[in-house]
């Protein structure tokens, strides 16, 4: 049941991401719901289970993108690893911490993408990427993040209440 709920969340998030979210783009940038979900899983999943979710989300994102297969698998895995490892040392209540976590995650995501494509694979990245698209992407994600976190947290509390499972943390 828990796995089915996570599967449905992923289907809805990716469907929204690839359809109507484009209508809310600012300077050609839309929020990355998958990234926000990965940060949420990294923080709220027990042990290293969040890393597995980050890997899965990254792989799905790669399949639904026209870019190099594996870039998002790598970046989302590393981001979930980062938050999963540090979750016991982080305070995750309140808008500001969530805002800052997601900005950090977005910057990491963009930098990993840039480094992999430019350094390892000599790929073409728009010149304005690091200084115009990436900051907008990070701030936009930071603003949308707390809203999505709120709904994901409601779901988490409901799941914890209704379906006892070994995946989610109590707080």
């Amino acid at each position: 049941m828990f796995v089915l709920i996570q599967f449905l969340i992923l289907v809805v998030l990716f469907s929204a991401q690839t359809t109507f979210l484009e209508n809310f783009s600012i300077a050609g940038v839309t929020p990355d719901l998958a990234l926000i979900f990965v940060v949420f899983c990294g923080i709220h999943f027990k042990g290293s289970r969040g890393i597995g979710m980050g890997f899965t989300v990254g792989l799905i994102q790669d399949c639904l993108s026209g870019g190099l297969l594996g870039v998002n698998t790598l970046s989302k895995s590393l981001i979930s690893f980062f938050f999963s490892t540090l979750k016991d040392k982080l305070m995750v209540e309140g808008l500001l911490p969530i805002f800052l976590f997601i900005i950090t995650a977005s910057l990491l995501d963009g930098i990993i993408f840039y480094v992999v494509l430019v350094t390892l694979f000599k790929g073409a990245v728009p010149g304005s990427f690091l200084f115009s698209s990436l900051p907008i992407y990070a701030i936009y994600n930071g603003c949308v993040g707390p809203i999505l976190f709120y709904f994901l947290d409601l779901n988490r509390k409901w799941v914890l209440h209704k379906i006892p499972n070994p995946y989610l943390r109590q707080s």
Partner: protein
Amino acid sequence: MLRKRIKGKRLITLLSLLILFSLVLMTLNIKRDQSPFFFESLIVTIISPVQVVFTQAVSSISGVFEHYFFVVNSARENKELRMQIDQLSQEKNELTERVKQQERIARLIPNEEPQARQLTVATVIGRDATQWSKVVFIDKGTKQGVYENLAVMTNAGVIGHIIQSTGTTSKVLLITDSRSAVDSLFQGSRVTGVAVGTGTNAVKMKYVPMNAKVEVGDPILSSGLGGIFPKGLRIGVVSQIIKMKQGLFQDITVNPSADFSRLEEVLVLMP
């Protein structure tokens, strides 16, 4: 202490495995041809029905709003259109005469009719799941005869080409993607160049010599070279020209003819 150390080692092993797997995936993706991995097809097959439902819902909602604004604007448009009709009917008479003249001339010269290309109408069901590439998904795939390297366009002009096909869906790389390059020419001067995507909503026309006469508003067409896009498809119009003193080529920005923010139905040019 020992437990902590074991946990740390486990995490490092996990991290190394994830990095290794991602790098293998990237390398395989570069080395192999364009056919999708089995899990790519599986994920697209699972997501695409939901994408269709979302797209239809959004389309219905935006349709209601568009209809309202349409009614508000229609009275003013009606007046303008009546004036245009008068003007166009006069032009039509002149052009009919010219067409007849051309037909007479054409009869004198033996000419092979260019083969009409078959078109398949497809609906855009989704966009790229990341920020960093410009790709759309359409609801036609190999079952409908849609394969890699077919050109895709709207009535306004070229939008891109198919880069990957599964059974019922295909990925279209838009001409605005930074990996896209279309051999093109200026309709008026016939000077050639390459229309390259920038990753934004504009396209750059590269390798146009400094001495080529180009003006803002000049239409750009596909040249037919490269084998994907047939000759004469509209790509866009020149929106900005910068001539650097030191450079060999002009820096030309092109506004694509197709509106990429409102892609709904597209045409796939079949082989």
